[in-house]
């Protein structure tokens, strides 16, 4: 009897829920209560950390981490959330928002929006994508290879390539891709 709910997307379901004044506030409350503890656990397990290891990094106890991961006991302050974001090297967004933004955010949840990668992992992933589309020619210098991967030339790339003697290509690429990506190209500077 596969007849129910088949034509409804997650977003339209949540949009319907928020159209009811009572439900929308229950929904916000339930999402915060359940979402944060589960996200914390997902990020921790994604990195292969135990609660004890995370506690050490946070400068707290395993019991505190266990409480933070439990929707019934998790009541983190913004200061605690900032510290957690720092330890995982992820961004933290705390703001009031229109319900349309909430619907998009919760309705569009994905594994990446839950087990959030660190800044370095995200940069590495971006570069891998770019690299897979760039064609390297045999004999290209490291600078040329990186420029092809990133798709433009920048001053910072030149600086990175000067470290060729001490760092392998991967070290250069993976260690500082975000700087390359953000640096203006020569054309943009001109």
């Amino acid at each position: 009897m596969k007849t129910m709910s088949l034509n409804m997307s997650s977003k339209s379901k949540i949009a319907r829920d928020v159209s009811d004044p009572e439900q929308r506030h229950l929904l916000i409350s339930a999402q915060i209560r359940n979402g944060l503890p589960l996200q914390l656990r997902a990020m921790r397990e994604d990195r292969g950390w135990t609660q004890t290891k995370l506690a050490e990094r946070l400068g707290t106890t395993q019991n505190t981490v266990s409480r933070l991961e439990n929707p019934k006991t998790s009541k983190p302050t913004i200061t605690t959330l900032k510290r957690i974001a720092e330890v995982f090297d992820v961004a933290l967004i705390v703001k009031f928002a229109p319900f349309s933004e909430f619907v998009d955010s919760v309705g569009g949840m994905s594994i990446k929006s839950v087990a959030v990668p660190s800044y370095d992992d995200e940069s590495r992933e971006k570069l891998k994508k770019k690299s897979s589309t760039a064609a390297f020619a045999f004999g290209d210098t490291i600078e040329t290879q990186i420029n092809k991967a990133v798709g433009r030339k920048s001053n910072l790339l030149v600086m990175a390539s000067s470290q060729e003697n001490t760092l392998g290509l991967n070290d250069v690429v993976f260690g500082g891709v975000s700087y390359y990506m953000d640096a203006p190209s020569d054309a943009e500077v001109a």
Partner: protein
Amino acid sequence: MKFVSDSGRDAVEDWLSKQVPIGERKGVRIELEAILRNLRFLKAEMWSRPQFDWLQGEHCQGIAELIVDYRGIPWRPLGCFGPEPDQYTLLIGARKDRKRKGKVQWEPENAIQTAIDRRKMLDENHVAEYVL
């Protein structure tokens, strides 16, 4: 996913309309969906307490409870993984009360047996997508 009987009755709606007091229905449903919405991005082996637990005992192997506490009431919808890989199906909504004489009381009393029976019936004709 959610179990659907031969007569087309959906286990979740059935539970909410029959067992959950009218004033609590919206809250219980939203709480259950918030748990599932966030839990579904964790690998199955990572599903564990405090949101999820396997039932103990040989006879109920493969049946699990979702831990949905709402306004002090321990709602425990029962389910199992399947019918397809990476799917989880809610089989019956239930409430688990404190142990009396060392025994956990379920409401409905036959909740576990119903879950076991429905699990055996799981196929594409007995499930519907639960949009979260």
